[in-house]
């Protein structure tokens, strides 16, 4: 599985770089999905979101769903996602689905009730699904947990990661995949990502990161448990610490980061991919991403990064959400119309806001990648902070 480095720029600790991770150029954001498809986006709308290449599908529901009815199908063919990269985690960025864990199992809440899974079952399920990247079983802890609990969580996480790598190494992966022969040859086995847990307790984070870096079977890492109540200073410190320990050749994914300033900080510290349901959160609140990316347009103003279309001042507004934006919503609908859709609780409000938000966040990351490639990421970051609030 390829990780080629495209360009890099010296940053603090780990260099800021763009890479290609399983076909996606990073830094990038992964779009939140439910039951296979991004929320409110049907496959015929994919053409309006050309920048959306990676999807984040929480795995809990997949255990309850009977998506794959025959061995010829993978998750991607069933849902029409052939060109996309699918990333699975046991947690869900929007709602609480992980239940209580013990030393042997993780549990998640699904529509069929609570399901408990051991490492062997977990790895087996992976093989049938045919996804691209998977965050291995982990025990997520946050600020509210005690030191003892955090220590236990880290121990479990590391033990499970080891176990999963062993299972993967021991089996002949191709044989165990229950897919039919003709697609087995085309499907690359899922990349395993170790999850660095530890709450805000730095020793535990350090221990976890060091233990996981030693595992050869892992293809990348996820910094879990972010944006769960810690301060932004703690968050930055955790990311800095973990990024400095983890091997530079493997990509890092950060969870929970959903505002543009934190994203810029994290990219500066070496994070490659982001999964937080950022676009979805904006849409659910009836907000639209409103940041501008071109100094020419902004001039010397300070612009809000998001606007709430519930605001009655938009009732007679005939302009698009962002007049220069090329997404379907900005080409087709006005703020006044979307305000009307929100007030009448019409589904088209969410559809059009999703189309805009996913596109706009995609544009933001594209700008970041371009800035890194041209060695002006720090400049871009400073400019963005100065002109947005």
């Amino acid at each position: 599985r390829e990780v080629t480095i495209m360009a890099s720029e010296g940053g603090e600790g780990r260099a800021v770089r763009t890479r290609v991770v399983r076909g996606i150029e990073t830094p990038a954001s992964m779009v939140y999905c439910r039951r296979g498809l991004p929320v409110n986006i049907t496959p015929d709308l994919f053409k309006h979101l050309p920048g959306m290449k990676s999807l984040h599908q929480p795995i809990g529901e997949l255990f309850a769903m009977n998506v794959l009815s025959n061995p010829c199908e993978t998750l991607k063919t069933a849902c029409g996602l052939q060109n996309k990269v699918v990333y699975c985690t046991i947690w869900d960025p929007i709602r609480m689905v992980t239940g209580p864990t013990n030393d042997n199992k993780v549990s998640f809440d699904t529509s069929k009730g609570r399901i408990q899974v051991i490492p062997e079952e977990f790895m087996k399920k992976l093989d049938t699904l045919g996804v691209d990247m998977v965050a291995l079983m982990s025990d997520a802890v946050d600020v509210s947990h005690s030191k003892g609990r955090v220590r236990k969580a880290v121990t479990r996480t590391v033990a499970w990661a080891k176990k999963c790598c062993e299972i993967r190494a021991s089996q002949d992966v191709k044989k165990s995949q229950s897919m039919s022969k003709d697609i087995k040859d085309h499907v690359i086995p899922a990349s395993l990502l170790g999850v660095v847990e530890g709450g805000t307790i730095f020793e535990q984070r350090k221990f976890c990161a060091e233990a996981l870096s030693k595992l050869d079977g892992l293809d990348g890492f996820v910094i879990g448990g972010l944006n769960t109540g810690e301060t932004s200073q703690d968050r930055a410190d955790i990311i800095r610490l973990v990024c400095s320990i983890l091997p530079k050749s493997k990509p890092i994914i950060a969870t929970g980061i959903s505002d543009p300033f934190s994203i810029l900080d994290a990219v500066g510290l070496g994070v490659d991919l982001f999964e937080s349901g950022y676009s979805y959160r904006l849409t659910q609140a009836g907000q639209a991403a409103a940041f501008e990316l071109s100094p020419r347009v902004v001039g010397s103003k300070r612009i809000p990064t998001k606007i709430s279309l519930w605001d009655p001042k938009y009732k007679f507004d005939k302009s698009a959400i962002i007049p220069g934006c090329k997404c379907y919503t900005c080409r087709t609908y006005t703020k006044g119309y979307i305000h009307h859709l929100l007030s009448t609780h019409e589904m088209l409000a969410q559809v059009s806001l999703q189309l805009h938000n996913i596109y706009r966040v995609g544009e933001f990351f594209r700008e970041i990648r371009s800035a890194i490639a041209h060695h002006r990421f720090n400049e871009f970051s400073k400019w963005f902070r100065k002109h947005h609030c």
Partner: protein
Amino acid sequence: RGSDGDFGFRDYMRRYDPKNPNHEVCVKAGIPEGWDRNQQDEDALNLILKPLTEHKSPALGFQVTARWNGARASRLTLPHGLVHTPVFMPVGTQGTIKGLTSEQIQNCGCRLILSNTYHLGNRPGGEVVEKMGGIHTFMNWKGNLLTDSGGFQMVSLLKLAKITEQGVLFQSPVNGSEMLLTPEKSMEIQNQIGADIMMALDDVCPSTCGDIKRFEEATHRTLRWIDRCIKAHKKPHIQNLYGIVQGGLDAKLREFCLDEMIKRDLPGYAIGGLAGGEDKALFWRVVKQCCDRLPQHKPRYLMGVGYTLDLVVCSALGCDQFDCVYPARTARFGTAMTREGQLKLRKKKYKGDTRLLDTSTAVGRKFTRGYLHELATREATGSQLLTMHNIEFLQNFMKDLRSSIRNGTFPNFVREYMREEFPSGDYPNWAVEALRA
């Protein structure tokens, strides 16, 4: 203009410039012919068919191009493009068909959709829609639009409505605010909305009500109101006002209403007061009576009819336009309309079903029943996919119906449809009688 034999063929329609009535302005209509993959061949075919009848109003052209007994296949030209009839119009009550973008509605094959005056008048309000450029600009729909006058809400929101000679006093189910909907007010809001076809405000009495006096009152009041509507309608040169024929299930009342309505010489007529759960044997007789009596060269719109069986029978009797909330609503409840009948996708038997939904629609060719079983009613995407499928299915169905009328194979179409819909042969009596007539 006199030698214009292709009225309605191209995507231009002549209409009067209100500032200078002597000057004809060529206005580019909304959806050019051939843009939607469903109807490219229909548009091409229509170029060569000669009309059997011809009707022109300032804002509407109607030409019947083929007939089979009572059924007709026609061209309906409206300010935003050409529509082939018999046509099914999906309902987008609040200025949107739930969950679908304008492009998706176009791709499903719709050229004429419906919206609701009462709801739009409440939220966002007629003057808002007008300021935003009219409903077409507001929702960025390039095709045609029809607005219902608010009359149906008299039935659906009966407990919140008080009907008087002046108008209907509604209490909003959303925020309790009151709106007095008079014929003048309905026309004003509909003028502000700017739909291509407007419906007159009529006094709607649900057909299941047994009180003959109420029916008589409603019929006479409808006629008094139609005159008020005609007087209050400010844009007859770009918006068409359809009159609605009431009269309940009583043949004499219907005949009276029909005669009076025809005297008003409106661009088109609607048959109202049906589709409320009344006995089908009476239903089809009333439809037939109205269709026989209404002028042949003008379009007829049967309100509220949406099941495929009803569409087939009423097309055979001579109706041109239909609307119903059924396909979109049932999609949100997880039912897909297919050639095999209604599939309630949430049922356990569809779990793990590897068959594609239905090969006649874009959505149906792409997704399996098993996957849609998981999505239906649980995710927004499920609702969007099924809505698109149902609407496209119905549009394809109507297209086949129209083709069969043009080709002269309408009876075969009906027979085949009945066989598929009722494989065990239990055809409803009323349908059989109606089709024989």
